[in-house]
């Protein structure tokens, strides 16, 4: 038992979700990612004298959606505060955020680590705006400022310190990503920065109920880095405690090159943000009717879908999780399985053929060239024994993609691949195969029963894939007996 086993790591997250809206939180500039620098600003996002904020309706709706999905309490009245500090990419010299009375309070995000169910409690969700970008590496003497991102709407989700491992954090963030995509409030793309998190890490002896002093690792935009950062930080803190030191609360940066956390060099010693209610923004009031409407039109939730795929469609957990990763795929599956009345076959088809095709062609399911009707027909051909699944998958499917205007049956006939369970035709082939391999026949009859696979292969080859496996198998066994 190592010294590290005496401790448990306690983690809380602050997740920033950049919302997918056309315009920014408090002004009508566009929010498109990757635009030429400083081409998406206005006098308001540049904080010109005399400018004032106007709150984007979308941001409020998205905040409520997220709150409803997580089972939070929606505050019918919430307001904004100013967080005052100076930074080159913070045009107003303050960020508009919600410090005192946020829009959503409480809630839970459920997920599983293997078989173990985990429920992470949400402390609150609040609305705020993003800062611009500071680019340090384009010049030796100057930092470049791009304000396209300044003012982009963010939701910040703050959790309770309920995490106990980097793995839990990883799965949580994955589930969050899935959730925001299901809700269509964000694309949850960490690489592009539309989702990032700060990790508050502390350690304590197992069995302790009080929390240790925590350190905040900021701006993790990759879960790989976050896992390493948390693991490193946890060890660093334990080492300190074991050596008899105490932990000082600090803000840290993780360097993926060196793999260590270092304190951010503070521009000011105390972060006194001087929060006060923003006098330029009246309170946000949401009535029950609006909340109810959002609740009723709330997109289906990922864990609801996964449960449905397992319980109603009887899919194994692995398949259910895979299909549920993207809402469009999950819903596509449900439609298809309902039409085809064979969930397992539909799952196989989508997981093994459709999805890889979409990924390869870099298209979404709406652009998939085959209709669900065609896929149902395709599955039926396999179900009714007209095609072996391997022939169907390997030969018919690609051919169908090439000729999407044709039916699967037409393609199969054109390629002459319709399985035959014509006994005469198959008997002929079986007889030929057995005649060609007397040694193996003898071996089989002596006890090597697994040679049936060999014979099957030969029959399939000779029949150019047209032999119906079940019928062949039965015939072979009869003849070999």
């Amino acid at each position, binding site marked *: 038992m190592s010294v590290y086993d005496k401790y448990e790591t306690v983690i809380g997250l602050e997740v920033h979700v950049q919302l997918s809206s056309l315009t920014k939180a408090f002004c009508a500039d566009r929010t498109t990612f990757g635009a030429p620098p400083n081409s998406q600003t206005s006098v308001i996002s540049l904080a010109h004298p005399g400018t004032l904020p106007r709150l984007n*309706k979308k941001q409020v709706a998205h905040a409520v959606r997220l709150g409803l999905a997580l089972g939070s309490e929606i505050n019918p009245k919430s307001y904004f505060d100013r967080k005052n500090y100076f930074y080159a990419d913070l045009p107003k010299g303050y960020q508009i955020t919600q410090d005192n009375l946020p829009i959503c309070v409480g809630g839970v995000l459920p997920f599983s680590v293997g078989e173990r169910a985990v429920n992470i409690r949400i402390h609150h969700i609040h609305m705020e705006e993003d800062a611009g970008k500071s680019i340090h590496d384009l010049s030796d003497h100057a930092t470049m400022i791009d304000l396209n991102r300044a003012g982009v709407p963010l939701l910040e989700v703050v959790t309770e310190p309920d995490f106990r491992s980097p793995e839990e954090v990883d799965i949580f963030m994955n589930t969050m990503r899935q959730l925001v995509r299901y809700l269509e409030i964000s694309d949850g793309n960490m690489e592009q920065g539309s989702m990032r998190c700060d990790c508050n890490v502390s350690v304590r002896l197992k069995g302790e109920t009080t929390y240790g002093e925590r350190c905040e690792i900021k701006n993790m935009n990759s879960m790989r880095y976050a896992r390493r950062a948390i693991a490193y930080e946890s060890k660093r803190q334990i080492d300190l405690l074991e050596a008899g030191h105490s932990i000082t609360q600090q803000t840290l940066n993780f360097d993926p090159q060196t793999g260590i956390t270092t304190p951010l060099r503070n521009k000011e010693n105390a972060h006194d943000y001087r929060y006060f209610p923003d006098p330029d923004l009246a309170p946000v009031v949401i009535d029950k009717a609006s909340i109810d409407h959002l609740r009723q039109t709330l997109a289906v939730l990922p864990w609801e879908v996964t449960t449905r795929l397992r319980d109603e469609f009887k899919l194994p957990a692995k398949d259910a999780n895979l299909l549920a990763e993207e809402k469009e795929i999950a819903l596509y599956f449900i439609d298809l399985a309902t039409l085809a009345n064979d969930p397992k076959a539909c799952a196989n088809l989508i997981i093994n053929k459709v999805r890889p095709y979409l990924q390869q062609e870099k298209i979404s399911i709406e652009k998939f060239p085959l209709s669900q009707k065609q896929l149902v027909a395709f599955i039926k051909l396999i179900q009714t024994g007209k095609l072996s699944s391997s022939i169907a998958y390997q030969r018919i499917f690609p051919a169908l993609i090439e000729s999407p205007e044709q039916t699967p049956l037409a393609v199969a006939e054109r390629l002459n691949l319709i399985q035959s369970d014509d006994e005469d035709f198959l008997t002929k082939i079986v007889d030929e195969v057995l005649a060609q391999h007397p040694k193996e026949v003898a071996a089989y009859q002596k006890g090597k029963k697994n040679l049936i696979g060999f014979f099957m292969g030969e029959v399939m080859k000779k029949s150019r894939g047209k032999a119906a496996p079940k019928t062949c198998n039965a015939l072979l066994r009869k003849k070999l007996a």
Partner: protein
Amino acid sequence: MKVDKPLISKLENLAKLALSDEEKTQLLTDMNDILSMVEKLDHLDTEAVAPLIHMSDQPQVLRKDEIKHELSKEEALKNATAKVDPFFTVPKVIDLD
């Protein structure tokens, strides 16, 4: 409440100012005078009073999510004294943030 030099430094830090010694001395006097005047408020019993936070009774009227009123990059950079097209510039920041 008495304002002293260390407090002035702290405030300068938060407000991003760098006053001369003369200015600081004068400011010390002025601030103390003003705060004495302001401390009159201590006489007011506000125990059970809710702070007045918003001047307007009406709730926020939300804005539709429609693109409007954008500035061109040229217009955005127009008033900046230090720029390297298409960026605003500041002296190199060495902090990692």
